């Protein structure tokens, strides 16, 4: 199989909400193996930038292209393939973590075996808690589950919005380990203002 080569390009992207221009004329290229840190004060458009990259929002003008081995996709078409973590992402409280992960991986056409589930829960520090309903989880545990959801399908494009919110020190190290190991797989974009998270980046985009 040909090794995957990913590139993400933003060309003169604008986005406004009402009269307020949140993203103004952003152009950048991110190459395979790079980590882009998107920084800026609150309300500067970090989350909006990631949502545009994820195909959850459309820019008012400009283009976003995701190239996989020189085949171009727009973010909306590529959406089901990428990994996404954000504060507004939530799971079904009535289901357990395992049921949530199985449901979403099944929708993506991936059959998860018990060993896969066990290793992913181990990786995010939820071993032994996978059968608990999500409603019984603390904020930190939900954040760990979001990591499991984001990397479950080994996405080459990983979008992380405030990835270490609610995480304790072991949780921070877990996040760092995931970022370092997934960096080789493709591209990671991180929206953050945390000084330690900023150190993970190869490129920095300052907004606002």
């Amino acid at each position, binding site marked *: *199989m040909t090794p*995957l080569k990913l590139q993400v390009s933003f060309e003169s992207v604008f986005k406004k909400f009402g009269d307020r221009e949140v993203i103004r004329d952003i152009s950048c290229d991110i190459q395979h193996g790079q980590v882009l840190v998107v920084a800026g004060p609150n309300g500067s458009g970090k989350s909006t930038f990631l949502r545009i990259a*994820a195909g*959850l*929002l*459309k820019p008012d003008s400009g283009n976003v292209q995701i190239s*996989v081995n020189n085949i171009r996709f727009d973010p*909306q078409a590529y*959406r*089901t*393939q*990428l990994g*996404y973590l*954000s504060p*507004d*992402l*939530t*799971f*079904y*409280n*009535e*289901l*357990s973590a*395992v*049921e949530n992960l*199985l*449901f*979403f991986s*099944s*929708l*993506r*056409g*991936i*059959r998860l075996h*018990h060993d896969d*589930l*066990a290793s992913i829960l181990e990786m995010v520090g939820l071993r032994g808690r*996978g*059968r608990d309903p999500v409603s019984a989880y603390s904020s930190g545990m939900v954040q760990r589950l979001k990591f499991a*959801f984001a990397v479950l*399908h*080994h*996405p*080459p494009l990983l979008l992380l919005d405030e990835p270490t919110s609610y995480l304790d020190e072991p949780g921070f190290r877990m996040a760092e380990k995931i970022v370092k190991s997934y960096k080789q797989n493709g591209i990671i974009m991180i929206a953050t203002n945390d000084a330690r998270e900023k150190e993970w980046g190869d490129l920095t985009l300052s907004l606002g």
Partner: protein
Amino acid sequence: MGRSNAFIGVDMVAQPNSSPHNGTTLPIIHQTLLILRKDILLELRNRAAIQAILLFSITTLIVVGFSAGGGANLPPDTLASLLWIILFFSAFSGLSHVFIREEESNTAIALRLTSEANAVLWGKLLFNTLLTFVIIIIIAPLYFIILNAPIVQPGKLALSLLTGGIGLSVSATIIAVIIARSHGKPALFGAIGFPILLPMLFIAVDATRLTFQSYSNINVLNRDILGLASFDVLMIVTAGLLFPYVWESE
């Protein structure tokens, strides 16, 4: 790791250990069934919709039964109208949950990241249709017994309930998604739904009324049932065309 999870054993994936980059994607029909299955499981665990529906429908049924004094003297058009009023408001008290729940709890984001828009529509539509028929199966026989309704044409009555029920559930589904995506209040649901459903309700009431009369014109009854079926097709096509835009709207 335990094996009692609801989604373990789901045998509708493309390839074992498939990666999104090896060219396999899950067909919409399989995604639809997964979403339907998930919604049934959530409903069995929290009973949000079915409790709202049963609370409304049973209460209304008892009030109508008492005030009509057994219904022996009620004319067929009143009997038919009361039945559809109960079914309409019962359905609308619960059917909105299925989308509004996804938006209010923000689970719609994960759904948008993992599934095709049309799979979400058909999954939700199937769930609402299933729920509507649960309501009809519970409410209609109780109604006929309590109000002593004279059913002359049971086959045609079943057809009118079937076609009317599908119309209710499809309309409710598409109205629910519009309200949910526009962050509107659930209270808007009935207000928006009523005018859309008014033509269908008129035909459904007329068809049901005719099934209570031994001297009814069979051609008019057939025309009514055909009218209801046409409304269903129109609403299904409209939902299929409209939904991807509403689902992707910001």
